[in-house]
């Protein structure tokens, strides 16, 4: 049980280091509080987005916390690959340039997998292969308005 956990943890941590560095130009990794017995403690982030000196993880900005969590989610996804991914508005906290970085990462992941991303953010929409438009008819029923092929 310990072995199974540590195998998963080390792989996800390795993914996290790589993904966090490429999303933030900074360094980050996961920390197990219970070093000898992981199950006696929790797991937290140790991150320096943009190579900043960060006093406490709680003091990070909304966007920085969001990028850290997204890197963690992507680290898990690359550890247990699935045939399709669905992400619903994961770019909410991010400024424009961070949306570009996350969208580029999703584009890479989508080379070998199918990605369905709900987003209201222009930099995400621009980088997609296509857009499914969703609206409401006058009778309040959902209508999927069709599929634009993006050449972006």
């Amino acid at each position, binding site marked *: 049980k310990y072995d199974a956990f540590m195998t*998963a943890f080390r792989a*996800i941590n390795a993914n996290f280091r790589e993904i966090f560095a490429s999303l933030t130009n900074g360094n980050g990794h996961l920390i197990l509080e219970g070093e000898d017995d992981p199950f006696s403690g929790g797991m*937290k982030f140790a991150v320096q987005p943009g190579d900043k000196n960060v006093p406490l993880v709680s003091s990070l900005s909304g966007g920085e916390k969001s990028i850290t969590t997204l890197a963690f989610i992507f680290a898990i996804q690359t550890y247990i690959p699935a*045939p*399709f991914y669905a992400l619903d508005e994961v770019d909410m906290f991010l400024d424009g340039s961070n949306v570009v970085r996350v969208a580029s990462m999703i584009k890479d992941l989508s080379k070998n997998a*199918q*990605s369905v991303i709900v987003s209201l953010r222009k930099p995400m929409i621009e980088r997609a*292969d296509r857009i499914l438009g969703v*609206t409401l008819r006058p009778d309040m029923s959902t209508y*999927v308005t069709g599929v634009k092929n993006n050449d972006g």
Partner: protein
Amino acid sequence: MRITEIEVDNFKSFGRKVKIPFFEGFTVISGPNGSGKSNIIDSILFVLSLSSARGLRAERLTDLINVNTGRNTAEVTITFSDGTSIRRRIKKTANGYYSYHYMNDRVCRQGDVIEFLTRHGIKPEGYNVVMQGDVTRIMDMSDTERRKIIDEIA
């Protein structure tokens, strides 16, 4: 393997039957607040039995039936690139509901669906579906809860 099509009929805001094509690569779903984007994700989780009613913003499965049409059933069909189609139907009854599962149009058990998905690498505890608000939830959880995410994966 990928999804090729989803058909949603009387489920949540889909008062009229809608066919949604799915493609390879990177597809964005966009539109106004309340138009039904998250409901599309919910319909995938529903038909593949990957979530409880509560995970779909409902209190019980019958809340998933559209309240405007007066009909008492909701149905979602998903088709994969290997030709397999999976359908799930909720039917409201006097005392509760029935939940029917179909694979390739033949009645099956929920277990058959779960077994098909596991064979293709789709599990409920995988993080391949990230719902609206999940990023904040994982950010704000206690360190112990976060470690348990790894427990479940291992």
